[in-house]
Every structure is written in structure tokens, then in C-alpha cells.
């Protein structure tokens, strides 16, 4: 029997035992990591965006170091790659892709959506981003807005800090966070009320 034919539960148990026996990862550490992975979701990134929209000092810290800003909100970043934050303005929109594989800021956005890993998205995002956004998401950038595609090719992970939409004046952070979607932080969509 080869490793590919081995019962997966037995294989997992054996791996866990070896990791523990060699002092690489204890059962408690593995359980903690699974809990962290499961708790990561776009809601985490949305909390950061909402705070940045209401707190200029936090916004500045988030643009300087996304991972530190995430930790400030209690989002576990230990062992995660550095997180960069791309600031949209009235003249500049950002779109994130990983053309080589599927690098994604999982700590703050959770598992990537299925299309993010597709060959179609990865190829077209760098070559025809405006056509892709318009056709697949109905996102048409106004004239005068430049588009910067950020290809996540190495050790950083990237999220977009989108523009706060009009009509949200006076909203608190929780209400603001509720309108921020995963696509808004990848850059395929724009937050709307």
C-alpha cells in the first residue's frame, strides 16, 4: 500500500503523533491553529475597513502595517505573512490577484472565493482588468479613476481599503462593517449602501 492509498484518518493521526513526538506541534497548538483558521472570515477585514473609515489615526496605522492594525482588533496574525493595505482614493482603484497561485490575505478575509483561484480570473486580471470587472461584476470605474492591479507574487498579502460610500454619514463602525463585502476588499466590487 502506498501513502496515497492509506486511510486518511489514520494518516492524519500518525502525522499528529509524529509532530507531537518530535516537539514540532502539540495537539493544543494544532487545535488553536484550526480554530484561528476557522474564525477567519471577510468579517474581520470588514471591521478593519470600518474602523479606518471612522478613525484617521487607525487608518494611518493600517496603511503603515496591516498586520499590526489587524492585531489591534484582536485578529490573530502570528505565523501569518505580512499584510499590506492598498488605499483607494477618488482617483485610484486597486485590484488584487495572485497570477502564480492563490496567495490571499486569509487571516483577515478567510478562505478565498472559488473564482479567485481560477485560471480565468488570474490571467485576465492583469491583462484586461477593466473588461473583467465590468463583465463579471458590473463594476465600471468612472473616467478619471486609474486602476492599479496588485499581483501578489511573493511574501506579502494584500487587501484593499475601499472608499467609504456616500449615504453612510453618522453610521457607527458595526453598521459600516456590515456593508463591506469580501469583493470590496479584493477590489472586484465597490462598497455601496
Amino acid at each position, binding site marked *: 500500500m502506498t501513502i496515497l492509498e492509506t486511510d486518511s484518518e489514520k494518516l492524519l493521526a500518525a502525522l499528529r503523533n509524529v509532530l507531537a513526538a518530535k516537539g514540532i506541534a502539540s495537539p493544543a497548538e494544532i487545535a488553536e491553529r484550526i480554530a484561528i483558521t476557522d474564525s477567519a472570515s471577510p468579517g474581520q477585514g470588514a471591521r478593519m475597513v470600518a474602523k479606518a473609515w471612522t478613525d484617521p489615526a487607525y487608518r494611518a496605522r493600517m496603511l503603515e502595517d496591516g498586520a499590526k492594525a489587524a492585531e489591534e482588533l484582536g485578529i490573530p496574525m502570528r505565523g501569518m505573512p505580512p499584510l499590506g493595505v492598498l488605499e483607494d482614493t477618488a482617483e485610484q482603484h486597486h485590484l488584487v490577484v495572485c*497570477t502564480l497561485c492563490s496567495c490571499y490575505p486569509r487571516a483577515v478575509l478567510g478562505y478565498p472565493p472559488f473564482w479567485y483561484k481560477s485560471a480565468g480570473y488570474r490571467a485576465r486580471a492583469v491583462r484586461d482588468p477593466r473588461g473583467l470587472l465590468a463583465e463579471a461584476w458590473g463594476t465600471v470605474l468612472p473616467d478619471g479613476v486609474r486602476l492599479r*492591479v496588485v499581483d501578489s507574487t511573493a511574501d506579502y498579502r494584500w487587501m484593499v481599503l475601499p472608499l467609504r460610500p456616500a449615504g453612510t454619514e453618522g453610521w457607527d463602525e458595526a453598521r459600516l462593517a456590515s456593508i463591506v463585502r469580501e469583493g470590496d476588499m479584493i477590489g472586484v466590487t465597490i462598497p455601496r449602501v
Partner: protein
Amino acid sequence: MMFDPGSSVRVKDDWPETRGPVHIRTPHYVRGMQGTVVRRLGAFHNPEDLAFARPAALRTLYHVRFAQPSIWQEGRAGDEVQVEIFEHWLEPA
């Protein structure tokens, strides 16, 4: 060689894939292309060695910006592609 933000750089027009098994984090579409250094992102272990469990030296990683139309000969003026590229793939332009 260190590059300051704003430096004009060219990505090496090198294709190690043609010479044997490799793990390269420099996308094909920027090989040979001219861009501008945005900033240094830090130093990271060279993934080209890391992937093969070889000793992997720390290498400076740069964020480099390219004009979108100059890469594809299409697209809108002013649009850009920004890519993380390791120092050993860059030369002054």
C-alpha cells in the same frame, strides 16, 4: 545591488524554466519589462531555494510598478500593474 524608491529597473529577461526544475516567483509577463521601484518590502528567504529545501539566503523584496499598456500593448494609459520582485531579478534601467 540596492534600489531606492523611484529607481528605474528592468526585470531580467531570464527563463530558468528552460534549464531544469525551478520555483520562480517572477511572473512571465514582466520578464524583460521596465518598471519603477515603489518601495522595499523587506528581506525574505529566497523562495527559489526554499521550495527545494535548500539553504535559502535572505533577499530584498521590492514592490515594482509597471505601466499596464507597455506590458500588453493594450489597456488604458495611467493603469498599472504592481508586482513583488526579488532583488536578483532586477537590474538598473
